[in-house]
């Protein structure tokens, strides 16, 4: 992962929506879901939009007051977490949106605010609904049964 690294959302496994500055992200395969607020949602939008990592750092540094290396580290840390959770994938064949469009969308027009570190909130409580494999076995006729053990 370097400044030129670009990502794409891991579709179709992952679906997401940003509403009123908060991102809701669902991994349809694992059952885990996530939320990102404020700066986290902004970083998500920029990464999901295909902006290179370095450009995301630049964008956040320009938009917010704060130590630029701390902002950079937070962006890198979040990108790494998102990758670990398989919400974004690196890729070269990405349709990159015009940076100007992203800047217009995410630049704070009312002066700079202090940067609040992005925190990825993860929820795993839906996994109980995805329980077929652990509790069933399939008989010779192809029909599932509860495991006896």
């Amino acid at each position, binding site marked *: 992962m370097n400044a030129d690294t670009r990502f794409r959302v891991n579709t179709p496994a992952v679906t997401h929506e940003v509403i*009123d500055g908060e991102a809701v992200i669902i991994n*349809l395969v694992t059952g885990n879901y996530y939320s990102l607020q404020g700066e986290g949602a902004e970083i998500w939008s920029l990464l999901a939009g295909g902006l290179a990592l370095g450009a995301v750092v630049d964008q956040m540094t320009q938009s917010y007051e704060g130590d630029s290396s701390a902002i950079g580290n937070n962006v890198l840390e979040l990108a790494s977490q998102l990758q670990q959770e398989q919400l974004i994938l690196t890729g070269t064949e990405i349709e990159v949106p015009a940076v100007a469009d992203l800047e217009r969308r995410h630049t704070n027009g009312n002066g700079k605010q202090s940067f609040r570190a992005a925190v990825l909130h993860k929820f795993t409580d839906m996994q109980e609904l995805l329980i077929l494999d652990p509790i069933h076995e399939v008989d010779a006729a192809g029909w599932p049964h509860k495991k006896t053990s």
Partner: protein
Amino acid sequence: MAAQEDVLTRPQPLATMNAQPTDVLSSVANDGRPLAFFHEMHQVFQFAAASSGTVDRYYRLGGYVVRLSFAGDALLPVFCSALSHLATASAQPDLTICLWDSGSTGVRRPAVPWREHYAVRGEVEGYNTERIYTVFDHESFGLSMLDSARNLAVLWAADTERIPYWIKGAPLRTILHWWMGGRGKQLVHSAAVGTSAGGVLLVGKGGSGKSTAALASLEAGLLYAGDDYVIVSDDPRPCAFSLYNSAKVAPDRLAAFPGLAAYIDNAERLDAEKALLFIRGAHAKQLSAGFPLSAVLVPRVTGLRNTIIRKAPRAASLAALAPSTIFGHPRGGEAEFRFLAKLVKRLPAYVLECGTDLTQIPQAITDLLSGKSA
């Protein structure tokens, strides 16, 4: 049990595809195996119905006429109680669901043509296409299929004993979810209460306080469309439609609702099950077919006395509504998420901090709906 279930007892093998309507022929190339197995299931249902007698029931669900066609009458108490408030006279159905069980009819389901091809929500891999839906129901150990092109579904259950009590409270959820999704409507994991002028969705996972808030509202005189699953649409404006007149309550919460005690369906099994109530007997006049929606509320049980409603980001209502709706339904995914995101963007969101004085919950909701608060 396995050997018994998998031995085929049915009429002659599947009729040739030439006997099918033109619309079926047109997609056989893509849907071949799933469609063939659907026909086989339907044919075996017809055999069971011919030998045990057909019993039809009609319901108006989300504005559509749905016919339940049973082979024999053993499954009626399981599948009809929760829908009884929406019963209607026989009419041309928009959807027909054929149901049979092997226990009472003696007619076994066809042997399944797949092996170990189950996805995590029971979807049978290779037997789900744009047209055909197939799921093994791991709750009842039954099988549900929908042919969306013919608005025809088949549900098989081994016997009534294997169907858990909560299915009686929310029957046919998977088939209705699939079918409604093709019509701009969506089953959602939510309660809905309100007035004829408007209502609210109460969203959140089990234990969040949905049922408590819904039942407290019911006892206070508000309209009730459901406590766990309702149908919603957003065209032309967000609306909730009732689906089930049931409610599930943890036994230790029953004392809070003394007026409902007489309507518990499973009173003798409360050591192992939540109480299943059918509201139709208790508050028939408050059972609403549906109402327009004014807000989404995310309940939280606080343990404090007072109930408070406060504004919340709409993303909070999406996070409370979407995961349990999507993962609670086989084949749930991107389409459902997009629908729900669009819906919550049109409705203000609030956190309903539910206090221990339950009378305050409906009052807070009423105040919100009348514009007196928040």
